[in-house]
């Protein structure tokens, strides 16, 4: 018996993580490459900050050419920072299971004894943190270079809006990841298509109030639309008059969206996983 215990191949597990402990460890393990691994490739960090900055500069100069009021410069800086989150959700959340499938990792995820939901949550937590660093950099750059002045109306509401926006946004990303699992070659194009139209519909660079009411209402299903509208109202005091809805209402809607997307992602993931296994799409790699 002693011999069996001293042999690492035959020794029983000293501690087997199951239940919430396994769930939590999976989240940490999946978020690790996002938080630590991505920072190791410094050129990625540079490009991921540089590209939103170029967009910010372009739209700021357009507003300057139009002699727009100064708060619009601030809107662009905020929009540019939030761009980083949308691109992260699109390319590193929604498309992620598709990439994993292409790389051959997806079947390993499926056969591993952990929850796919924990994997998605880990991706979300890690992505959110890593992107936050980039968004803060873009905001600092824009603020310093273009002399943007913030007048924060309520720190508490601002914190609530940002947190709820992030939860709802990454919840939506988790939901979309399930849908992307079914895509083949079209996944790349679909993700590519969801850039400019979303920048337009969500009012990344202008107040959403200027879109027709029903268009703005429809776009409000995307958490960033109401999140940015509320943040504008809370960060630029002059923006209250061009808010789409009042901040309190937007906070309630964002809370509803957060719950909706996370619950929906759980059910959709289970359904799509079953469908993908049944139709043999887990290991399919169409290029």
């Amino acid at each position, binding site marked *: 018996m002693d011999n069996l215990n001293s042999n690492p191949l035959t020794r029983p597990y000293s501690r087997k993580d199951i239940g919430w402990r396994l769930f939590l460890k999976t989240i940490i393990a999946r978020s690790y490459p996002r938080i630590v691994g991505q920072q190791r490739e410094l050129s990625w960090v540079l490009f991921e900050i540089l590209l939103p900055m170029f967009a910010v500069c372009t739209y700021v100069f357009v507003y300057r050419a139009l002699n727009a009021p100064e708060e619009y410069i601030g809107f662009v800086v905020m929009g540019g920072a939030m761009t980083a989150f949308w691109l992260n959700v699109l390319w590193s959340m929604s498309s992620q299971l598709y990439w994993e499938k292409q790389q051959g990792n997806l079947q390993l995820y499926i056969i591993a004894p952990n929850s796919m939901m924990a994997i998605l949550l880990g991706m979300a937590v890690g992505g959110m943190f890593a992107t936050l660093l980039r968004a803060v950099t873009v905001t600092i750059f824009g603020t310093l270079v273009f002399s943007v002045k913030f007048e924060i109306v309520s720190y508490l509401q601002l914190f609530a809006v940002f947190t709820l926006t992030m939860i709802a946004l990454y919840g939506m990303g988790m939901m979309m990841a399930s849908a992307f699992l079914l895509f083949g070659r079209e996944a790349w194009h679909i993700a590519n298509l969801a850039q400019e*139209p979303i920048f337009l519909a969500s009012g990344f660079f202008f107040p959403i109030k200027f879109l027709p009411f029903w268009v703005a209402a429809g776009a409000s299903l995307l958490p960033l639309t109401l999140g940015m509208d509320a943040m504008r109202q809370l960060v630029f005091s002059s923006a209250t008059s061009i808010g789409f809805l009042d901040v309190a209402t937007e906070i309630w809607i964002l809370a509803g969206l957060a719950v909706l997307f996370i619950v929906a992602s759980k059910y959709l993931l289970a359904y799509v996983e079953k469908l993908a296994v049944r139709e043999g799409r887990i290991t399919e790699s169409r290029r």
Partner: protein
Amino acid sequence: MQTSTSWRSFRMAAWLGWVIESNWTDPFLFAVYSIVKPLSGAAILVIMYGVITEGNFGSALFPYIYLGNAFYIYVGAVMTGVSWAVVDDRELYKTLKYMYIAPINIPLYLLGRGGARFVVGSIAVLITILTGVFFLNVKINLAEVNWGLFFVSLTIGIIMLALIGLMLAGFTLVTARHEGFIGEAVAAALYIFSGAVFPLDVLPEWLRPVGYFMPTTYWLELLRRSLVGEVANAFPTLSQFSNLEILGVMIGLSILFGLVSIWIFKICDHIARENGMIDRTTNY
């Protein structure tokens, strides 16, 4: 019938590029994809303009912004298209090594791949301009358009963009784990420095010389002048120069950028061959 290696390389690459670009879905979704993306980009600028000017689309600045943005689609399509072919073939399809040992001309093969993007880009440019003309008061009088200047500028500009794309393809060959960042970053930078959607005078004074050194600045100016002459002259940046002078500057800069691009591609291609980078995958 025998054809030259160069023409065959270009023609087959263009066909391959077109098939890759278009056959991932049905024609309807492909058409929607090709139209929605550029129109959304234009719509962002239109709304920004409309919000600030309270819908005064009669100002000279509007066609300046709108046409500059429309023709800039070519930069993303052609320039980035050529360099993206390296990422596509090496990282995704893993076929670049086969292309290198096949009896084809590699630079022309890459340029051909950009040719397919040119076709898709042209559809987007045309639809964007037609939308502006029919719905947004962009006044283009076909009888007054300087067609000669338009086609000469367009042709030289596309060749210039393709050659800059070749330079980026060279950099991509010797770079790991960057996917499309190089092409995207250069396209985004040129968008600012070429005065595509705002006159160069809006840039801080110390940044303007960068814009004056870019052939795309003169290319966009000539395209605007050929379509809506008096509007393009409304801004002081290049108004003191005649069309011929701007054309001369553009040709000179295009030749300079073209030669530098070919030279850089040759160096990068040599490094990639010598260091075994042709079949080195780092993204997938």
